[in-house]
Every structure is written in structure tokens, then in C-alpha cells.
């Protein structure tokens, strides 16, 4: 397995507010990496840094060994909102990547048969072939998200970033799309980095579950002057569960949810940085002396 994404010693602050606090993370190819954490812990910020939408205040972010690139084809993105281009039909939206890179985007009459066929194939995979000629505003939220996934996938990005992509959908559509995304991930051998605040979703989808949280303790003490931001407080390797919502009722699944809830969402339960549950083989941690004063 190759290291697709490598993050080391990354900090991000907005003015006085520290949002991400010494993040270390490596993600391998083929991983379905879900990130969960309480609201405001910096999940979306982390995703924006990986995407190149924003720069880290400190630290390194590498995609395939390349450091600090602006948004480009190495990362695909599906947002919760602003998913499709409103002035283009669904087919044109899905085809857009091909038109931009191999076709004539400046020519409004440009049509490439192989691009259309490829886009239709992707639309079939997301079960939207009947909506090809429609405009995004004529689609339901779930259909829009499926089209957005097809739009991103047609470029076969090395890593697909998703920022609460199903957050605005009703529960039925949501679990539909979850199953569907798992199916796609398996078939297309995708690498996915998926941010959500929903523990069920994170535990169900991921092969690797990261809990990002501001609720932890370290040797800097608990003084009010200590600025502390979100950190990866646990890193689980999840067994690839059967792709059915059945597993959600299993004992193991419920135990996992309970554990995640405690690790990340409970302000009164603060693990010390040295005790974080970082069992995933790709996991690593570089602590400053101020955070963990091991020697003394």
C-alpha cells in the first residue's frame, strides 16, 4: 500500500483561535477514512487544508509526495452544498472534467461522443441515467449528491474528499447513499477521506476511523492561557463489515459507537495525549515536549 496522503505537525489557527493542534496523519491508498468529532473541532478545516483551499499555519501536507498544492486534479471533492454547476445539465456536469481537460470548454457546441458515453456510464452507476438532460434544480437533494459523486469520480482522483456529503439529506436517502458509496468504493478501489459529525455514519462507512476532538489533556496543563485545538484522539482500524445496514444492530458496532462517543464527544473524559488509542498501523504521533514531558 502506498502512502497517498501525509500530514505532519500541522497547525491551523484563525487569528487567536487555534483550530488544529499538531496533527499527524498518513492515509494509504484504498482506505475509506472517516473523520468524526464534535462540531467545531476542525474537521472541515482539516479537509480544506488537504484540499488546498487553505494553507496550514504550520506543518507539511503532502499528496503523493507533492507538498502544498493549490486545488487540482489530485484531489476530488464533494461538498454538502454547492455541489453542481447550476447552469449545466446533469450530463454536462458529469462530463465537465473531461471537457475541461480533453475537450474544448470554450466551445458551447462541443460534444465528444466518447465523453458522453463515459458520463452516461457513470450516471448509470449512480442510477441517474434518466436525469441526464435535467438541470440540478430539478433534482432532489439525494440525486444532486449522486450526480456530484459521479462528477468527481469521472476524473478518477487519487483521493476523494467528502465534507458531510449526506448531511442535508433525509435519513432514508442518507442510508441509501451510504450503502451506495460503499459499493462504489469497493468496485472502483477508491481512496476516500470522509468528514462527518454523525458517529453512526463514520463507524458504518470507514475502514479507518479517526476521532478528532478538542477534549483531551496534555502536560501543558489545563490553564486558561493554554490554547488547545483539535487533535486526533483515536485512530481505529475497522474490520470491513458486510455492506448492509444490519451491522448497525450488532453488539460490536454499538460498543464502538459508545467508545467513540467517550473518546471524542465527552468534555469530561479527557485522555492524556500519551494514552490516545492510535492502533491503526499507519498511525503516528509527534509530540512536543510541552505536550508530553516523558523524560522527567
Amino acid at each position, binding site marked *: 500500500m502506498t502512502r497517498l496522503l501525509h500530514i505532519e505537525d500541522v497547525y491551523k489557527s484563525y487569528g487567536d483561535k487555534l483550530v488544529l493542534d499538531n496533527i499527524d496523519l498518513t492515509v494509504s491508498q484504498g482506505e475509506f477514512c472517516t473523520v468524526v468529532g464534535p462540531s467545531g473541532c476542525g474537521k472541515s478545516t482539516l479537509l480544506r487544508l488537504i*484540499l488546498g*483551499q487553505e494553507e496550514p499555519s504550520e506543518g507539511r501536507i503532502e499528496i503523493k509526495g507533492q507538498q502544498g498544492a*493549490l*486545488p*487540482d*486534479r489530485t*484531489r*476530488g*471533492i464533494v*461538498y454538502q*452544498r*454547492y*455541489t453542481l*454547476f*447550476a*447552469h449545466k445539465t446533469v450530463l454536462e456536469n458529469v462530463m*465537465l*472534467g473531461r*471537457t*475541461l*481537460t480533453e475537450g474544448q*470548454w*470554450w466551445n458551447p457546441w462541443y460534444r465528444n461522443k466518447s465523453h458522453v458515453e463515459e458520463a452516461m456510464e457513470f450516471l448509470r452507476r449512480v442510477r441517474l441515467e434518466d436525469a441526464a438532460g435535467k*438541470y*440540478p*434544480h430539478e433534482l432532489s437533494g439525494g440525486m444532486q449528491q449522486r450526480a456530484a459523486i459521479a*462528477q*468527481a469520480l469521472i*476524473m478518477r*482522483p487519487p483521493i476523494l474528499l467528502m465534507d458531510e456529503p449526506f448531511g442535508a439529506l433525509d435519513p432514508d436517502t442518507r442510508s441509501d447513499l451510504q450503502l451506495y458509496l460503499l459499493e462504489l468504493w469497493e468496485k472502483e478501489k477508491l481512496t476516500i477521506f470522509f468528514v462527518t459529525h454523525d458517529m453512526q455514519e463514520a463507524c458504518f462507512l470507514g475502514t479507518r476511523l479517526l476521532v478528532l476532538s478538542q477534549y483531551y489533556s496534555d502536560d501543558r496543563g489545563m490553564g486558561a492561557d493554554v490554547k488547545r485545538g483539535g487533535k486526533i484522539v483515536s485512530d481505529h482500524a475497522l474490520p470491513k463489515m458486510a455492506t448492509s445496514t444490519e451491522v448497525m444492530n450488532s453488539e460490536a458496532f454499538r460498543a464502538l459507537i459508545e467508545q467513540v462517543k467517550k473518546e471524542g464527544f465527552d468534555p469530561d473524559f479527557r485522555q492524556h495525549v500519551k494514552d490516545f488509542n492510535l492502533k491503526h498501523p499507519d498511525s503516528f504521533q509527534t509530540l512536543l515536549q510541552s505536550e508530553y514531558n516523558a523524560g522527567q
Partner: protein
Amino acid sequence: MKRPVFLGLFAQPPKALQIVLAALPFVLLLVAYLVASDIRLEANPNDKLLPSVGQMVDAIDRLAFQPDRRTGDYLFWQDTLSSLQRLLTGLGLSTLVALTVGVMMGAFNGLFVLGNPFLTFISMVPPLALLPILFISLGIDEVGKIALIFIGTFPIMTRDVALSVRGMPKELIIKAKTLGASDFAVVGTLLLPQIMPRLITALRLSLGAAWLFLIAAEAIASTDGLGYRIFLVRRYLAMDVIIPYVLWITLLGFLMDLLLRILLKWRYKWYQG
């Protein structure tokens, strides 16, 4: 549940009443005019201030359907054509500049920093104060009038477009980049098409100003045009010409606005608001 018909926050006038309500102020104004005109003409048949409908029809018939004794032109149509030419040329240039310069400024931060303070500055210059300068430097024929309309409308339209482009969700631009778009492709496939409805709205809002500058320019230095005619016949207190001309200008403005609105509805269905 019973909704009130007219009064109250939840009033829902039925279709027929809506039409009646919409027409009411017009009818009232018309009736008031007719009555007042009647009273004045009764007292003095030579009164010029509030001409009767018949007098106005006569005046327009003379100007629109009989060739002028001196020049042989149909003055009403000649005036309309000249004015529309000036108006549309000026507005067309503004629209073109707003679209090109505005979108580029909105898209590229560097260009925005370069152009925005300057645009803000010239949008503050009262265009009518520039009128003498324009007439002196560009002459009193077409160029000066078109320049006034252009200068009066393009800074605000360009700024509006630039700010709207900047206000577009960054997510869309980033998405286009992740799909492999070059910077210019982002402008061409995303920003330009998405700004079109906004541009049309900006154009609609500029129509009123454009008419103002047109009439002003024509009033001061011209040999034809709707504004020229109004200010010419003012000397003879020819309200029977002035009132129909004003109504005609209003109608033209309304029709342009309507056309743009229809274009917006028909061509840009995806655009809400």
C-alpha cells in the same frame, strides 16, 4: 381557515381583485387628470397647461404621421430612432465592459486590487457634471451623448458584476479546479455563464439612469431626439406634445425592462432571485 381578501399579513387577494387593485392607481390618476383638464379648458379654451386627450392625439398625429413641413421627416419616429440608438449604444458598451472587465476583476484578486479603488472613484463622479467636459472634448454630436450614458452607467455595472463574481461560493471555483480546469476555463465555463443573469439584473437597474443621462444630453445640445423635442417645445408651453412624449419614454423604458425580464426567465431558469 379564512384568509382576509385585502387587509392583514395573510391577505390573499383573488386573481380578479389583484387586477382591479393593480389598475386602480392608474385609473385614479387618469380620471383626476381628465376632470382637471376639463375644468380648466371650460374656463379658458386656450389653456395650454392640461390639454385634452383630443389635443394630444392631434399633436402626436401631426408629429408621427405627417412629414415635417421643413425637413420632410416624421419627427416622432426620427426622435425615437435617434434616442434609442444613443441609449442602446451607450448601454451596450457599458454591458460589454461590465462583462469583460467586471468578470476578470471579480475572478482575479490582483486585477480587483488594481481596478476597484479607481472604479469606486469614478462611480462617485456625478456624470452630469462631466457633461460640459464631454461636449467640449468630444463634440456635441453622437459621441458626447453616448459617452455620457456610458460613463454614467458602466462603473456601477462593472462593480456590481465584479462584486457578484467575488461573492460566488469559493467551493464552486475549487470544484472546477479539482476537475482540471485552468484559471481561464474557470472564468469561461463557470463565472461568465453564472454571472449572466446578474448582469441582466444590473442592466435593468441601469436603464433609469441611462434614460436620465440621455434626456439631459439631448436637452442641452442636440438636433433631434425625444429629450431634444421635449425641451424644444417647452418654449411654447406645448404640453400636448410633452405629455405624450413623456408617456412614450416611460413606455419604452417599461418595454425594455420587460424584455430583459422575459430573457431572464426564459434563458436562465436555474437562476433564482
